[in-house]
């Protein structure tokens, strides 16, 4: 058991799987000598050499396109988009090939690759370094989209993602990279993809969130429990697609009240889908409208403005209160 931050925990998973399987290679911009702009790939080049830790030319479609080729031959590329804001360059390879190869060939071919990408705001970075666009990936059938929220689940989910038979988009909340440490077991751990985690049980209201938002959410819940004397259930979605609908529905049936907190803009987002699933399966259990606490549907502002737009602890707390009082 060691106390690790998320960067170290992700690094641990990479180390473990690279040791395990010589088909696992890491590729991307600055992942080698530089060890990643966030040092997520620290030590890998030294240990596994240039053949398995590949500093690629500056070309995102090139990275994913060649990874698809590697994956088709039974390798396990774990490629990195330096920031999720540059991952729109790979949409055609994802939508058109990675996600389809299995169905296109009725299972003869598959593309088991992982695309890691730091996402989200809050680190005072330049433009394009702050978005949360999981919607794009979640809407593509054939790929899975995973968003860890803590060192321990990041490590376990990444191990599972690398072992998964299909393409997995692994979005890393960079704001949480070094924000806190957590005990991470020494023995390799896995978490099933497509499964949410009930972080705490409660009866009055369900709060659903994922990724970097889990931290303000947890704080808002702590305060809310005390101040509003409420019993709050907290679900960490972890895999935004495919959604663990059952975890959500079971909880809603129990509490009847829901707050969803997401960093992304509201329009056509994971929160929309969660509301829709609740509508489909548990409408009659609702005692209040599901409350969505999201970014606004505006062009992502530069960093001095961004925190005014990303859901804050205060806003989350107010949403909880409002929904409890409905």
């Amino acid at each position, binding site marked *: 058991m060691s106390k690790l931050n998320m960067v170290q925990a992700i690094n641990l998973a990479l180390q473990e799987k690279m040791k395990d399987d010589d088909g696992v290679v890491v590729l991307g911009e600055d992942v080698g000598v530089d060890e990643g702009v966030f040092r997520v790939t620290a030590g890998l080049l030294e240990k596994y050499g240039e053949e398995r830790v590949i500093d690629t030319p500056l070309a995102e479609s090139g990275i994913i*396109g060649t990874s698809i080729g590697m994956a088709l031959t039974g390798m396990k590329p774990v490629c990195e988009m330096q920031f999720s804001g540059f991952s729109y360059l790979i949409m055609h390879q994802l939508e058109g090939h990675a996600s389809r190869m299995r169905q296109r060939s009725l299972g003869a071919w598959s593309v088991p690759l992982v695309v890691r990408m730091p996402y989200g705001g809050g680190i005072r970075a330049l433009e394009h370094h702050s978005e949360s666009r999981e919607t794009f990936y979640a809407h593509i059938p054939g790929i899975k989209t995973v968003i860890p929220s803590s060192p321990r689940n990041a490590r376990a989910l990444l191990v599972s993602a690398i072992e998964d038979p299909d393409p997995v988009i692994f979005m890393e909340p960079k704001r949480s990279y070094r924000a806190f440490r957590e005990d991470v077991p020494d023995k390799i751990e896995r978490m099933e993809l497509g499964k949410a985690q009930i972080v705490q049980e409660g009866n009055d209201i369900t709060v659903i969130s994922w990724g970097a938002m889990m931290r303000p959410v947890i704080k808002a819940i702590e305060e809310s429990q005390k101040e509003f004397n409420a019993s709050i259930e907290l679900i960490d979605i972890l895999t935004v697609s495919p959604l663990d609908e059952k975890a959500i529905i079971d909880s809603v049936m129990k509490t009847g009240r829901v707050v969803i907190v997401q960093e992304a803009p509201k329009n056509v987002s994971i929160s929309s889908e969660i509301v829709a699933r609740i509508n489909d399966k548990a409408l009659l259990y609702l005692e209040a409208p599901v409350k969505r606490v999201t970014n606004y549907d505006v062009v992502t502002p530069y960093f001095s403005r961004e925190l005014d737009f990303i859901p804050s602890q205060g806003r989350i707390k107010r949403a909880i209160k409002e929904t409890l009082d409905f």
Partner: protein
Amino acid sequence: MASALIAYEKKSNKNKLKFDTVKFYFNKGQNMPKKITNRFSVSYLQILDENGKVDKKLEPKIPDKDLISMYRWMVMAREFDERMLKLQRQGRIGTFGPSIGQEAAHCIPAYLMNEKDWMVGAFREAGARLIRGETMEQALHFYNGYEEGNAKPEGSNILPVSIIVGAQALHAVGIGYSLKYRKVKDAAVVTFFGDGATSEGDFHEAMNFAGVWQVPVVLICQNNQWAISLPRHKQTRSATIAQKGIAYDVPGIQVDGNDPLAMYVASKEALERAKSGGGPTLIEAVTFRMMMHTTADDPTKYRTDEEVEGWRPKDPLIRMKTYLINKNIWSDTKEEEMRAEVKKEIDEAVKNFEANPSFDSALVFDHTYGNKHYTFEEERTEFLAERAKEAENVKA
């Protein structure tokens, strides 16, 4: 064949990237000291010209049986395309893009590949697909809108048709990386794309990665002069596609793509180069799309009959047949026999195909993911229920 054919002259300062180490090449006799630091050239290869004349200095030694076999594949590709055109007009298959006229450009390299080689095609290499082991039934299923057409043939590494122009070249480079990493002996990747594809960013990235990684990949551009309605000279201003290799230090050559012997020599050399650690090669096969882009296209809107007719005498099949006859290993009787055989094979394939006209739709739920998630199982149940109700309605 020496391996010097496919190469541009290089007098470059490669690997000495600090400009202060550049060695200048002055153009003598010029007033202005124009410091030329790098020179390049692009070559053109033709061995068997359209009149059947052979350049003896370049003629490869190919066993008769291989020559005949290659010819037979090209005929097969031609006859099959023509049958598909008929089937399409009769509504028995959907839209497809014939490769008539381009047989040498893709059949010859495919013929030179072995079981360990990988073929990563676009969508206009019908003959190459057959040679690499896909069946005609598969092609028919594919063009009839069934994924069943993409089954992987036993003992052959061939990826399904790739429609997103240019994207597949990157897959080829990634596969090349694997072959190199795994130290697979005697294996290379051949990827095909059109002249239009060279405009896509993915072509550029594939060439660049191939150059940097020095992977065993042969990139074959079937330059058939047209990308739907766009003529080659509007696609790019460069005089050749081959010279695009210079941008990446990837050797490139322009080949008469309707000359089976030139395609043989160039592909063989490129495959050997790849397999001996010499890295990637770009081959521009200059050919012509004799038919419509796809059966949904009307080429009379954008090109003249004269242009098409001008290319007819250059037909790779005619050329090969003349060569075989001149070599005294072919005759009209043999031709007749062979054509009959080929047609019979095609008849049979069509019969098999039509005996099996439709497949289960719910299969799609099995292959969207490799493992199951209960939400998709629920969707499958819903799908089946809806399909059942739909069937009831039809009955009612």
